[in-house]
């Protein structure tokens, strides 16, 4: 047991717990009994709060442990996180402000709300909502993996159900203050989380390389390690087969990120269009941080860091290499701060994700199918309860199911959420696609994507299915015909699935236009997409 680390960690954890409960009173509206308030923090966050909130939301604890772990294990491929988070902002800069405006005029809380308004179809909205919930759940579970990696590094590495007790307590506290304060809790805690993360990474990136002979030495050590492995796919540079995977994984991940309901929650909670635009300029500061952090995976190679064995599963857990690196090379009190940064870093996104999933459930399932006449107060109550269910579902997942399963599901989640791109992102610009076509495309992309993931095996880790998202082009077959022969060049599955989705959607749309099928009613007006905060047409906050 590492007491100094534990005490520093607990003190900081206590601090954010108090903040989480007090957040209910912070910038309080007239009532918390409305989704605009509980689920979107009053829709009035300014540039700074949004920067911390969205930064804390997108750059999660799991990212902070998994990206260096991937660099540690596979080399250059893990660096895709940098291009991913750089091209992200130019890609979403224009669509996001449109989404904000139209949502502000009509009071939309979720992406599925928008789809329902745009196409007048609650079935299409249901598909989008369910996709969002299913894709978000394993993401929440993975935040727990990040938190647990830290707890185990501090010596809380018990076996069996009891080994998960610290995790359970941490999550219970999180669940309680999220229930009480809603989105304001993670927004306030994000300040602490992000400041700690910046502090830790900057110290790590300046101090650690000098300790191990500088960057040149570190990269040479990494190269030597990868040369010694039998695998040809690893190394400090990309190989012939994984370059396409690198580029498409970065692109696919960037396209997918703001389709996740929790990312959009942070955007819809902001005050106006300029807040979002300024953040698109300022958020890459986190990308820089992530890039530097990724390099710590190589530092860990130089330092000879060994992943610790997870007592609950009996396997070495590479996600522990960053906590282990910090623990072995920092004084205990600073290691405690570093662990707290990662631990709190798990709480912020987990809270926002559970709120986003709860909003989807409440708006697009509960109010649509279970209780149509629900008042705003009943909606808020339902969402609070749903957020509890979602969080404990995630804990149960980690405790009772192998964490590897969550990682597999998260992999599938990325491919799934990408299939909502035509209905959510493209619909922001045009209603050219027919509503039937969007549904057909979704089924095609989803089905084909899942099938392709199933075909990916990796004998090296003893998995025949769902062993990753890198698809050898040779695996693609169209009714037995292999358009790419036996090519071993890899590509990200999500991109292929999205392509199939769009192809089917185009074909069905053309048929629908020929047959003159009714394409639903559009609640939105073209001018809705440019409305800003000072426009009289914005819907009053927390109005019925």
């Amino acid at each position, binding site marked *: 047991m590492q007491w100094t680390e534990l005490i520093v960690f607990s003190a900081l954890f206590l601090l954010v717990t108090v903040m989480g409960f007090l957040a209910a009173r912070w910038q309080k509206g007239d009532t918390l009994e409305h989704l605009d308030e509980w689920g979107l923090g009053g829709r009035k966050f300014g540039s700074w709060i949004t920067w911390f909130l969205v930064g804390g939301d997108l750059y999660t604890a799991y990212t902070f442990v998994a990206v260096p772990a991937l660099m540690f294990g596979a080399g250059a491929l893990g660096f895709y996180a940098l291009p991913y988070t750089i091209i992200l*902002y130019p890609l979403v800069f224009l669509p996001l402000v449109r989404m904000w405006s139209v949502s502000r005029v009509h009071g939309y809380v979720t992406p599925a709300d928008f789809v329902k308004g745009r196409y007048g179809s609650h079935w299409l909205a249901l598909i989008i909502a369910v996709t969002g919930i299913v894709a978000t759940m394993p993401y929440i579970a993975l935040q727990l993996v990040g938190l647990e990696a830290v707890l185990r590094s501090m010596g809380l590495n018990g076996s069996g159900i009891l080994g998960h007790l610290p995790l359970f307590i941490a999550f219970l506290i999180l669940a309680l203050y999220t229930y009480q304060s809603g989105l304001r809790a993670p927004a306030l805690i994000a300040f602490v989380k992000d400041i700690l993360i910046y502090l830790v990474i900057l110290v790590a990136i300046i101090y650690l390389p000098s300790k191990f002979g500088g960057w040149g030495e570190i990269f040479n050590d990494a190269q030597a390690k990868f040369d010694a492995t039998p695998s040809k796919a690893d190394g400090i*540079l990309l190989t012939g087969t994984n370059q396409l995977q690198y580029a498409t994984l970065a692109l696919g991940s960037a396209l997918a990120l703001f389709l996740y309901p929790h990312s959009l929650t942070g955007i819809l909670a902001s005050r106006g269009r300029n807040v979002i635009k300024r953040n698109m300029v300022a958020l890459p500061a986190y990308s820089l941080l992530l890039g530097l952090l990724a390099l710590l995976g190589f530092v860990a190679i130089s330092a000879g860091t060994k992943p610790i064995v997870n007592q609950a599963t009996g396997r070495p857990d590479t996600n522990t290499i960053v906590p282990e690196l910090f623990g072995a090379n920092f004084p205990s009190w600073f290691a405690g701060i570093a662990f707290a940064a990662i631990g709190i870093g798990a709480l912020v996104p987990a809270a926002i994700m559970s709120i986003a999933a709860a909003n989807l459930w409440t708006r697009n399932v509960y109010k649509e199918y279970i209780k149509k006449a629900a008042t705003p107060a009943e909606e808020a109550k339902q969402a609070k309860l749903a957020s509890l269910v979602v969080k404990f579902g995630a804990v149960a997942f980690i405790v009772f199911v192998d964490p590897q399963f969550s990682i597999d599901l998260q992999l599938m989640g990325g491919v799934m959420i990408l299939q909502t791109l035509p209905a959510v992102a493209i619909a922001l610009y045009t209603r050219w696609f027919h509503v039937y076509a969007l549904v057909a495309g979704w089924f095609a992309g989803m089905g084909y994507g899942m099938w392709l993931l199933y075909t990916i095996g990796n004998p090296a880790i003893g998995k025949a299915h769902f062993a990753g998202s890198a698809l050898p082009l040779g695996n693609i077959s169209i009714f037995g015909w292999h358009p790419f022969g036996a090519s071993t060049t890899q590509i990200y599955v999500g991109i292929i699935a999205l392509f199939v989705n769009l192809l089917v959607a185009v074909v069905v749309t053309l048929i629908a236009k020929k047959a003159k099928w009714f394409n639903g009613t559009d609640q939105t007006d073209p001018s809705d997409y440019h409305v800003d905060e000072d426009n009289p047409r914005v819907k009053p906050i927390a109005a019925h």
Partner: protein
Amino acid sequence: MPSEHKTGLRWSNWNLLLILPLFMLITPWFNQDEPRIFGLPFFYWYQFLFVVLGVVCVGLVYVKTKDEPVVTGKPDKLGVDDLDEGAN
């Protein structure tokens, strides 16, 4: 409020700058070790430079399109009767 005549899309040529960062996806351009800077292989520092490029591109688009009047895409073709509306 139908009184606001706006079409669904606004366009500014500055938006084209948003394409520039996507060029970092062309991996053959930078998948090499040399030259190194501070020990960092070319592959890594080249991509770090794109953080700056991305910020500059998005920032320019933000600043340059901030006060842009709404481009309706259609010239103002009000009928004579519309112009005379106040006179009645």
